[in-house]
């Protein structure tokens, strides 16, 4: 019989991680919670406010508008990027040297730092010197994203599509590549049309990667900050002020730490809730097995 020593020494091994997580996540998050229920005028003097800030944020038209813009933006880019990504992935070659070429080209936008993307598009879209801006104006369309809210919105959407469709393409392509040839061969023997092959073989097999793509694009686009901040700064007016831009304005521009903290937590809860809904809905069929 082997004598087994039982003690709790192993907990010490967990300690570094615990400390790291505490300083990384728990302490900052709790600080935010702290701010969200108190009022401060500096000098580390705090007054208890309860849920005042939460009520204020939830009833503020400014928050509603930013949230509305945010939802609309996310909906639009998902509606464009997911189908577009799938179409591009379907059109990509399956073998040969072109595969590597395509993959590198696709990965390029993903490797560019976000503020550089914003700066690039800012210059690219300027009506007087930018290639895009000048071209559009030369075609007789009055376009100036620094002054027209519609133009600014369209530019931000276009920039995001340019920046992130590649991610969907790469994921969808990986999904497509994992389908064994036998599926296509069987479909040919069964006399399936191209659309049927897509509908009954490719789409179901891509479902898991597309779920990941939708979740990633939802979370990232819902938190978008850097690129529109560099491109439009949230303007003109508030036309492209999304939740994160508004949050920074409140927290660092106006220094209203209480409302900003409350808004952060509400923002966080919305992302968590929507992600959960997306995941549950898209994975619903899997559970029926």
């Amino acid at each position, binding site marked *: 019989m082997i004598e087994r020593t039982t003690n709790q020494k192993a907990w010490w091994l967990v300690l570094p991680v615990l400390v790291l997580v505490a300083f990384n996540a728990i302490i900052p998050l709790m600080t935010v919670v702290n701010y969200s229920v108190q009022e401060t005028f500096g000098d580390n003097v705090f007054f208890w406010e309860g849920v005042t800030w939460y009520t204020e944020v939830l009833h503020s038209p400014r928050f509603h508008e930013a949230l509305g813009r945010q939802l609309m933006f996310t909906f639009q880019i998902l509606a464009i990027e997911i189908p577009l990504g799938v179409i591009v992935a379907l059109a990509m070659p399956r073998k040969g040297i072109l595969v590597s070429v395509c993959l590198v080209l696709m990965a390029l936008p993903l490797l560019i730092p976000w503020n550089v993307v914003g700066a690039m598009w800012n210059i690219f879209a300027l009506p007087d010197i930018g290639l895009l801006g000048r071209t559009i104006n030369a075609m007789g369309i009055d376009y100036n994203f620094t002054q027209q809210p519609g133009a600014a919105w369209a530019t931000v959407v276009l920039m995001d599509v340019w920046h992130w469709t590649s991610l969907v393409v790469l994921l969808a392509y990986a999904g497509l590549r994992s389908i064994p040839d036998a599926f296509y061969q069987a479909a040919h023997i069964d006399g399936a049309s191209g659309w049927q092959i897509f509908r009954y073989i490719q789409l179901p097999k891509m479902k898991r990667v597309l779920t990941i793509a939708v979740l990633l694009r939802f979370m990232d686009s819902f938190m978008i900050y850097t690129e529109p901040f560099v491109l439009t700064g949230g303007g003109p007016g508030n036309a492209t002020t999304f939740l994160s831009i508004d949050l920074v304005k409140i927290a660092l521009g106006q220094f209203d730490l209480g409302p900003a903290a409350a808004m952060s937590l509400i923002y966080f809860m919305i992302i968590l809730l929507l992600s959960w809904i997306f995941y549950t809905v898209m994975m619903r069929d899997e559970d029926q*097995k």
Partner: protein
Amino acid sequence: MAEITLRNLRHSYLDIPLSDADYALKKIDLSWQDGGAYALLGPSGCGKTTLLNIISGLLEPSEGEVLFDNTNVNALAPEQRNIAQVFQFPVVYDTMTVYQNLAFPLKNRGMGSSEIDRRVKEVSGMLGLADILGKRAAGLSADNKQKISLARGLVRPDVNVIMFDEPLTVIDPHLKWQLRSQLKQLHQRYGFTMIYVTHDQTEALTFADQVVVMHDGQVVQVGTSEALFETPEHTFVGHFIGSPGMNVFPCQLDAGGVRIDDHHIALDVSPATTHGTDGNLELGVRPEYIHIDPSGMPVEISAVIDVGRYRILDATLGRHSFKIYCPEGVEIPQSDVRVRFDPRHAHVYIDGWRLAGGAR
């Protein structure tokens, strides 16, 4: 149903094949009788799947013809050839129910819904899928999925041939037997032509009436399991069929037989003398036909492997090592072991191909 003939078939995956080695199929002339159960047996990479895909029309052969009932079908697409194929990994349409899976090929061919219903019910009954017709195909076990792939072929009226590409690879061992015997029953009852690709000799020998053995892009022998065992036409067949495989010794022709080093073995080698003896001569004899006999040739036994009901002896004759099958009840002498090759079951091969020997 149709008779399938392959005429002068060659195939290369390269656009411009330069030498014989560039061909996945070297030269195939073969005829599959209507209603036969064939197995296509060979090691991985010998061209079995290529041959299958050429028959089904998924691949177009570089040279030669594929004939269904003497009609050239080279130009026909898979769906026009009216064939069915079951693949190594079960192919089902995940989002459809079992019923929809079975109905899919019929719908695509524009069949009326009452006819579809009748056929789906019939085939699902045949394969024991009737209880799960309403279930989603995605969640089923591998053997049921494989049955669905088969059923999608059977459901179509008058299929020319059903081809199986190692269909039991992913099936549990105890279900393999069940599925295989079910297939055999179906074949006996409905008489469709079946071609069954496998690299497992037991699977091939128990399933098929005729086994086609392939090696390195060529068909080396077509025959019943008995013929493959008793009269291997190529040393490869001798190696590949049987466990352990046939023993092969380099030999020379001799008056009234062959000689291995100094040992004369009496054998009817008359066809060899007329054929000429240019090339590499070998004597092949299965371990089952080497008997311990005090009047035979002296050999060394290096190991005795007890496999339960029989023993396999590792032996050497001069420089040549070989195996002997030793059934229960046969004594192995402690020293001076002598063996005799059964002349009715010894074959002479020239460059791998059988020349003479054996009882015909």
